[in-house]
């Protein structure tokens, strides 16, 4: 494993050390913190997380001026190749041999859950931004983990509930035929019905699939106003492409992607993705703060705009550093207590809170992908349809089955 040292912060840290030594050794040793960014750097989620998450973490260290605050930060990163045992191996090695204090990002639910478990066993901190599974704050919740950016509950809540409010009250589901797809469909159905909508039908598609034409024709024939895509990754991209070929959105039906990220829209192009409705908790063009930050990010990332997962890495790293500076310690129990007791505030997600079960609460946004004619420039992809307040967007504290809450 190679270590990417943040040279600037390291030098600044060295300078800080020299400084404190000169100022009569105020007994304020800088605290050495090591942050491990563990994600997919070569596969399916490399654009969504990957190097961008490392840049985001580094920007958090810069913006916090960690060195000036007496924290000496080192960032290491590795590729878990979306394999749980590779991820588990790296996490263990980081904790056991390399004195890593925090592991951030970790997309792919199976890897996220594995790291969650190891972090608890080794008593360190896991700030998960990349995984979708709501189990991280449910049955498998841990006092050492914060699930930062999004989860499956919030995705179905956002897209399902807000779509019905916006008039999309009849639904048809295209569901990837495995547990993840089933869960998304079940949760979204519940939300749609609670909001007064109706589900006209659905079809289970083999996973992974390439040909969705017959399923899309069924969806078209159902005359539902909204076609919910309860799938992910390649399935979503393929179904959106083929829906565009059938002219489904042009015919007045709306496609609702339950797990689509801005990089997917970027890859599909507006011509194909136009009219798609989706939920995210961050978009680079939300306000002045997000625009300014994203431009700095883009300058280091060949013009790529940040995803919500990368924004989550920034936000969580920032809050963690604040906690270390405030408690003057990196003891996991103390730091976690501080992080949960004090609200979060950063330019990307605004103000938020962290719940007892480790769920970070912030608003979610329902977006519609623009038509090519509406887009004013590169990465101008979304228009905002609705804002869902954090309390509504995420699963209520007592509805999960997190043992920490009952205790």
């Amino acid at each position, binding site marked *: 494993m190679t*270590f990417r040292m943040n040279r600037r912060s390291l030098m600044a840290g060295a300078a800080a050390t020299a400084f404190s030594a000169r100022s009569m050794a105020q007994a304020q040793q800088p605290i050495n913190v090591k942050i491990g960014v563990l994600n997919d750097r070569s596969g399916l989620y490399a654009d969504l997380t990957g190097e961008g998450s490392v840049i985001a973490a580094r920007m958090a260290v810069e913006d916090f001026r960690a060195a000036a605050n007496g924290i000496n930060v080192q960032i290491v990163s590795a590729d878990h190749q979306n394999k749980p045992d590779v991820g588990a*191996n790296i996490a263990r090695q980081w904790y056991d041999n390399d004195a890593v204090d925090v592991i951030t990002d970790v997309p792919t639910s199976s890897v996220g859950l594995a790291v969650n478990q190891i972090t608890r066993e080794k008593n360190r901190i896991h700030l998960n931004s990349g995984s979708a599974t709501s189990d991280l704050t449910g049955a498998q919740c841990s006092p050492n983990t914060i699930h930062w950016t999004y989860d499956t509950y919030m995705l179905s809540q956002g897209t399902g509930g807000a779509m019905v409010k916006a008039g999309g009250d009849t639904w048809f589901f295209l569901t990837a035929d495995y547990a993840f797809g089933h869960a998304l469909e079940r949760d979204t159905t519940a939300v749609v019905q609670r909001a007064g909508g109706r589900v006209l039908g659905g079809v289970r598609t083999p996973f992974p699939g390439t040909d969705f034409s017959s399923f899309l024709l069924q969806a078209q024939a159902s005359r539902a106003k909204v076609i919910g895509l309860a799938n992910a990754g390649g399935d979503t991209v393929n179904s959106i492409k083929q829906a565009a070929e059938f002219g489904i959105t042009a015919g007045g039906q709306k496609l609702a992607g339950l797990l689509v990220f801005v990089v997917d829209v970027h890859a599909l192009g507006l011509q194909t993705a136009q009219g798609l409705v989706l939920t995210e908790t961050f978009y680079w063009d939300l306000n002045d703060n997000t625009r300014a930050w994203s431009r700095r990010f883009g300058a280091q990332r060949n013009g790529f705009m940040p995803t919500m997962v990368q924004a989550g890495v920034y936000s969580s790293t920032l809050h963690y550093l604040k906690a270390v500076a405030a408690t003057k310690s990196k003891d996991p129990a103390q730091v976690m207590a501080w992080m949960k007791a004090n609200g979060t505030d950063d330019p990307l997600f605004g103000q938020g809170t962290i719940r007892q079960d480790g769920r970070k609460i912030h608003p979610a946004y329902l977006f519609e992908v623009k038509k090519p004619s509406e887009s004013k420039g590169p990465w101008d992809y979304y228009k905002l349809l609705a804002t869902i307040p954090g309390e509504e967007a995420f699963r209520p504290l007592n509805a999960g089955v997190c043992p920490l809450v009952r205790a």
Partner: protein
Amino acid sequence: MAEISIAAPPASPTEAADHAALHRTLFIALAALLVVLPFIPVIGYPFFLMKVLCFALFACAFNLMLGYGGLLSFGHAAYFGFASYVSAYTAKHWGLTPEASILLGTASGAILGLAFGSLAIRRQGIYFAMITLALAQMVYFFSLQTPRFTGGEDGIQAVPRNALLGVLPLSNDTVTYYLVAAIFMAGILLIYRIIHSPFGQVLKAIRDNEARAVSLGYRVNQYKLAVFVLSASLAGLAGATKAVAVQLASLTDVHWSMSGEVVLMTLVGGMGTVFGPIVGAAVIISMQNFLAGLGAWVTIVQGVIFVICVLVFREGIVGVIGKWLKKPL
């Protein structure tokens, strides 16, 4: 068309004794290495070593079928992965001790092997490979669709390491490592014994010329089925052990790419050699592990190394060394 034989010409009795002595020395050296490995810095990380050993045993089991039986299965992930699910499930939900869950896992590999093998051996070559692949895919989809048993795409997480035989606690990674090392040594010694038994001789005869073996009166299909079941059980043993060592079982292990990975390990190390698959597994797993920091370059480096192996080490790393030494390794 001339028959191409991979095997060396039959060894004279003195040569055979010579080879056996060499192998004995190598096994002792290997055992000694396994004992001291955890004390070597950097590579001596017990968790990593356990993974290498599990995959090495998996590759050896696969090699038993490919290298000595001449049967290319493209679905070995099914036995490996399914056994790891059974082992993880019984340890977690039934609270079984490690030896019991590993045995149950191995048994599930054997049963799957018997079922799949009895179908697959009816065909040869590419058709054989396709049948094993298709059946393995069924196991994959079964695992994907039964979250109650396998945890679906989340896998079975946090598998407890219960006390071995109810007395010896496995809470410590190093203790677990020695258990895995013992299972690994027992596994490869068994494979070595199988290869050099009369049964193994018949297998090699079938591999080199099936028609002649039939004409000599051997019931070829029974031999093939036997080696299929043996190989599947040992793959199951490797998978079941891995679930206990790594403390998780996931879809990665039943996915078809895992079947491909074990072919890669065997070919890189040396097909039809005793020690080749061990070296191959060590090379591939180390690459996955130590190159993880390279990010997107991992797969590229892996590809380049594979190309170099194909160009330079046509018989695999150990195969080439064996050729230099003029001794089967």
